[in-house]
């Protein structure tokens, strides 16, 4: 079945409304996209929606009790809560360096969880 739908682009603050036509396997951009990033986003959103995931992880013996983290790549939407579950279980020892891998292949997504802040002991 082919559907037309409006997708609000989340790449930049403008938030363009992009009209697409999709059957779940293929996607056609009808109108509304103002840049290539927007076109790519709309296509992915129709076929394989993903989100960057940010959260925080507990730190032992750090100057802060938490270190902020992000996914190395956008996570499939359906996997967000399984990734969060793993994040919640994890503890890391200070010091932590920004960019350091905290969890490898989180929830079997082949995506890593990286620190976005440095935490001193």
């Amino acid at each position: 079945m082919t559907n037309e739908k409006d997708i609000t682009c989340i790449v930049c603050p403008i938030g363009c409304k992009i009209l697409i036509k999709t059957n779940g396997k293929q996607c056609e951009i009808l109108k509304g996209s103002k840049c290539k990033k927007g076109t790519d986003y709309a296509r992915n959103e129709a076929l394989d929606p993903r989100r960057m995931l940010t959260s925080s992880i507990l730190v032992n013996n750090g100057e802060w009790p938490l270190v902020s983290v992000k996914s190395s790549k956008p996570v499939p939407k359906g996997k967000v809560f399984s990734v969060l579950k793993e994040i919640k279980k994890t503890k890391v020892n200070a010091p932590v360096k920004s960019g350091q891998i905290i969890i490898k292949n989180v929830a079997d997504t082949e995506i890593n969880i990286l620190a976005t802040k440095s935490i001193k002991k």
Partner: protein
Amino acid sequence: MAELERKKMINLNVDIAIIGGGPAGLAAAVSAYENGAKNIIVLDRNGWIGGILTQCIHDGFGVEETGISLTGPEYADMYIKKSQKYGIKFMNETMVLQIGRNKTIRAINKKGLFDIKAKSIILAMGCREKTRWSVLIPGDRPSGIYTAGVAQAFINLYNIMVGKNVVILGSGDIGLIMARRLKFEGANVIGVVEILPHASGLPRNVVQCLDDYDIPLYLNHTVTYIKGRERLECVTIAQIDEKRNIIKGTEREIKCDTLLLSLGLIPENELSMKAGVEIDKVTGGPIVSQSFETTVPGIFACGNCLQVYDTVDLLAIDAKKAGEYALNKTITQDKNITIQAGEGVRYVIPQIINKPGKIHFTLRVEKKMKTPMLHVISDKKKIFKKKLPWANPANMIDFYLDISKEIINNKDSIEVSLNDK
């Protein structure tokens, strides 16, 4: 009784003193150095550098500036690394008490009382959140009511969860971001209540913070009553009409233990006012020239204490200019022309121009427009015209325009207006 330690007054001399070490203060400091200033000091009351960015652990920062989507701490780090490389001095846990005459800053920290004499001062104090008392919600005063930014600090910095069943009043970006954050931390986010007929935050945040997690957004609604003895027990929400009167019969109680307020931000300018800086009633920030100099010569302003910006990217453009011009000190003000907000425009920055050149204008419109046309008019003559793809009060509009010597010499004001064709 502990003996009071007598502490000496400490005197410092600097070229540029920056008040506030958040994104604006950092961008101004880095730019001042890159333009030739050497002796720069940044004063901040927090124990860390980076201001609010430290608790904004979500991504979306720097998209326009760097082309990549950074988290708040990563964006701050980019500037912190530079400023450390440049040898910019930071004084943390330092409270500025006042800005006196001759650009002397009085500040206090654990080491004692400081008098810092600066050639130029840059105000970068940021802004504060509106509270329950800004909108006067009647009812009890239980615990469990937080501004969204305070809840964000509790959760993201101090690992303190704020509650289980949460209602959010106001759909500003921080409120939307917090809706998702609370959901991630296992809270039940009952809904976001917004008095306006549209969300106040960016469209991308409505999509990725509310729609993604099926969090309802109640437009044209507000919280009319707060109930709870010790802890918040429930709030009453109701639909409102165009005149913002409550529509009778639409009131309903929602059981919840936490209410987050995301009602908007107010530029923080107590220090500026005490220093004699003139404040724009619409922006809530200082009146500035194209070089971001306030009405007090040698005192500059940037960041959210100047106006509340939509994005850090846009904020940094102006903050860097402030840093660059602060070094060149006061521009001889032979003549000032004023910039007036014309039809459809709520405010324009700068409000004053005293030097020809390429100027970065920022403005906000009064209402949504579908096919807006921007006009700059000087003495009934159009000097600039630009078609915009859209205009919306929630999105700041910015543009560059060359202002010639003739305009400054021959005119007293120029007007910026927008109309929907």
